[in-house]
């Protein structure tokens, strides 16, 4: 018997699969072109809906079963060419997937959705589908489309269904399958009990029975196999037509001596499943543990290597060779493990076409989204945090960037606007570009708004065009004339920039007035690793993220000036930059207090440039970021920690917080 927890686990995996299937459905629906739609595409969509329906019954989610059944009916009518996949029809289907999505979410949370959820959509689906009578035939129309015999004449099949012993463990019930099979035609079912052991040896949780079925039906082999779809891996199944034998590819016990002609038919169903067989689902926590362990191994390996370095070569040549090999394998292992967490950006990109489609419908615009490089891989940690900013930027382009068709035509552009979305690897980072051929940023309007809001000093005439463009990243800035519910709630591009910079990324804009604008986002491939500069202050080492460092310099004596009541400042090529002393902020002993004998690391923080006084640069290194707050209390000015080659913990500076710390220090003093 399956226990409750087992059932819960299966349900979870059903839910996860359903969510993926829904995403796939949506993607395929968006791809559907009424002109060129073929059965292949519709079949794929149908299969998604069918799989969701199939699983929902097993977990008693009847509301999903009922809804998807109607959804299936419409898809089926489309496949048969009775209903055309027009834009309107696809819209309804998309809305229907939303409803199913809500239902699955509800199931995930263990709640029941409102009974009238999706009622209107359901009616519309029925309306569309009712261009053809919704009889049993329509519902099971799937089974009609590929008759092997080429005509609808009744064929006699002999079917051997021999479940594996552990069939029950996967929650399957042979009786239901046989009942389903009997619906297909006239079935004679004979149970084979020869394998049932004596009572003392009988395990009630195992399936000892197998069945021989003679089925007279006008349905295809595919239709028969469809019945067994969910137990494919848990049984030996052979379906033999009068003249032909069709085997399911995974049935090892089929008699190969058979004199009848053997046809292994690869139907679309099996093809669609093949790629999945090469992957497994793994709990992310396990992967994280693996990454941690490998991180530890790398450190241990570095320690071993350091210890063996002084050993005489001739005496310990084998050991030293071993240590070298170890180092080599460690590097490879680390690469592989990091790549396990890499995911294609497709998982975020795929939800954007829907957003663009919705916006264009809502605003009466005609927008095409062209996506490229969606297979570019990036670490899971980045994927998780990239979704929101990217969605916002796409919305921004569709809402503010692309003009209405009338305006576009008046400007001599094609009525349809295009947004290009691309991703690629460039120099160890991922670069995502969102480019539109819309109106571009209206600098006059931006400047006017900025002046109104007091974001710019004076009349703004000193600003370069690029500086004006960058005002859109300013906090609390929004240029939409009317605050729409699409974008422009005042939490606009500044949030995007903050999110992206929070990940160690950069966002830039290139504005081509009246021709469009291009936003470029550059991000590290992983948030788990950081390029750091190790600096020494007194006897302590700290790490400054390389991405925030502009340059390092040693000032001459007297170049750092003390301004009464303010921070010390340094004149760097005419620019006055505040200088902070790490030893003061962190109370570090034995540190160099005189800047001319120390070094100043110039960094770019959210509040502008600043100079950090340190004793010495120790070196540059890739470090694995560890959470400090998991066990210890957070420390202001420190974003995390890492473990260096000697096994010691080193702290990573959060340059954006340092200035706040200075302010407090001065007030206290």
């Amino acid at each position, binding site marked *: 018997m399956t226990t409750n927890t087992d059932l819960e686990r299966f349900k979870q995996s059903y839910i996860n699969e359903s969510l993926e299937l829904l995403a796939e459905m949506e993607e395929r629906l968006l791809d559907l072109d009424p002109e060129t739609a073929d059965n292949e595409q519709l079949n794929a969509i149908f299969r998604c809906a069918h799989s969701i329906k199939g699983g929902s019954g097993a977990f008693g989610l009847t509301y999903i079963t009922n809804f998807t059944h109607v959804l299936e009916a419409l898809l089926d009518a489309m496949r048969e060419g009775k209903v055309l996949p027009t834009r309107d029809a696809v819209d309804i289907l998309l809305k229907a997937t939303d409803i199913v999505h809500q239902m699955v979410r509800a199931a995930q949370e263990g709640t029941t959705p409102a009974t009238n959820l999706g009622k209107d959509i359901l009616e519309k689906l029925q309306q569309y589908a009712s261009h053809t009578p919704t009889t049993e035939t329509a519902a099971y129309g799937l089974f009609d489309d590929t008759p092997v015999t080429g005509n609808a004449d009744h064929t006699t099949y002999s079917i051997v269904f021999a479940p594996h012993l552990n069939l029950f463990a996967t929650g399957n019930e042979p009786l239901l399958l046989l009942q389903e099979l009997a619906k297909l035609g006239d079935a004679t079912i004979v149970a084979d009990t020869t394998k049932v052991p004596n009572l003392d040896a009988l395990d009630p949780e195992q399936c000892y029975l197998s069945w021989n079925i003679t089925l007279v039906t006008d349905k295809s082999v595919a239709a028969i196999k469809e019945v067994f779809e969910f137990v494919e891996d848990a049984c030996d199944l052979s379906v033999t037509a009068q003249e032909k034998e069709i085997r399911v590819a995974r049935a090892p016990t089929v008699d190969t001596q058979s004199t009848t002609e053997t046809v292994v038919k690869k139907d679309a169903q099996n093809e669609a499943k093949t790629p999945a067989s090469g992957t497994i689902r793994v709990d992310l926590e396990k992967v994280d543990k693996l990454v941690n362990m490998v991180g530890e191994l790398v450190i241990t390996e570095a320690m071993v290597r350091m210890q063996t370095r002084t050993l005489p070569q001739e005496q310990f040549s084998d050991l030293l060779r071993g240590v070298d090999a170890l180092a080599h394998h460690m590097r490879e292992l680390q690469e592989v493990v990091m790549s396990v967490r890499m995911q294609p950006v497709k998982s975020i990109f795929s939800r954007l076409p829907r957003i663009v489609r919705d916006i264009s419908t809502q605003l009466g615009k005609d927008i095409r989204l062209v996506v490229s490089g969606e297979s570019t891989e990036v670490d899971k940690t980045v994927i998780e945090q990239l979704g929101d900013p990217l969605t916002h930027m796409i919305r921004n382009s569709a809402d503010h960037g692309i003009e209405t068709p009338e305006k576009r035509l008046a400007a001599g552009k094609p009525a349809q606007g295009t947004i290009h979305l691309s991703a690629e690897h460039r120099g160890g980072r991922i670069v995502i570009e969102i480019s539109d051929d819309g109106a571009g940023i209206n600098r006059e309007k931006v400047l006017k708004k900025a002046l109104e809001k007091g974001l710019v000093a004076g009349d703004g005439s000193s600003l370069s065009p690029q500086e004006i463009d960058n005002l859109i990243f300013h906090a609390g800035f929004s240029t939409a004339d009317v605050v729409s519910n699409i974008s422009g709630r005042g939490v606009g591009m500044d949030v995007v920039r903050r999110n992206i910079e929070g990940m160690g990324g950069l966002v830039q804009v290139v504005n081509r007035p009246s021709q469009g604008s291009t936003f470029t986002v550059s991000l590290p491939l992983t948030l788990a690793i950081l390029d750091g500069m190790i600096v020494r202050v007194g006897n302590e080492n700290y790490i400054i993220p390389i991405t925030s460092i502009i340059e390092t310099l040693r000032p001459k004596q007297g170049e750092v000036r003390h301004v009464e009541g303010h921070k010390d400042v340094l004149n760097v090529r005419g620019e006055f930059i505040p200088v902070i002393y790490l030893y003061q902020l962190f109370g570090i002993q034995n540190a160099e207090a005189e800047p001319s004998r120390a070094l100043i690391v110039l960094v770019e923080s959210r509040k502008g440039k600043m100079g950090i006084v340190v004793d010495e640069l120790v070196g540059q290194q890739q470090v694995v970021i*560890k959470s400090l707050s*998991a066990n*210890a209390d957070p420390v202001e000015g420190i974003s995390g920690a890492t473990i260096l080659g000697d096994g010691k913990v080193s702290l990573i500076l959060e340059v954006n917080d340092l200035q706040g710390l200075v302010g407090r220090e001065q007030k206290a003093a």
Partner: protein
Amino acid sequence: MTDTYDKNRADGTQTIENAGIPQEFLSFTVGDAEYGVDIMIVREIKGWTEVTRLPNSVEYMRGVMNLRGLIIPIFDLRARFNQGMTEAHAKNVVIIMAVGERNIGLLVDTVSDILTVNNDDIKPAPETETANDADYINGLISLENRMVVLLNIENLFETKIIERSIAEAA
């Protein structure tokens, strides 16, 4: 936090309900005093190694240490009791324990014993003038000529206390 907190109070406060059931404690010393914690929260015992100081932390927070990839804060029990910082060397012992959802290390002088004690042999903490002190004592065990103070580690290094100290320092 409160859930795990209750679970961790298995070291002493449950004495009344579980009278007569033997419990095991790890005892250790700081100077002349002997302390104990429920052995179930102890994860590991290791020698002192140099830690990385966390800037602007309270005095008894010695810094953080790498324990197989985890960053563990190390607290100095002597300093916590206002007896000055432990002059730590390799002979000093760090006891790693799971407290609530966090793993922390406790710097002590030596680990002395594993005590198996019936719950009714644990005496309640004496009434003290300051309420705070009683919060981190779960009880007392008297053995022949010594006395072991059972500590409630969570209350002893409660985050809020640390935050308050930082606020006071600033």
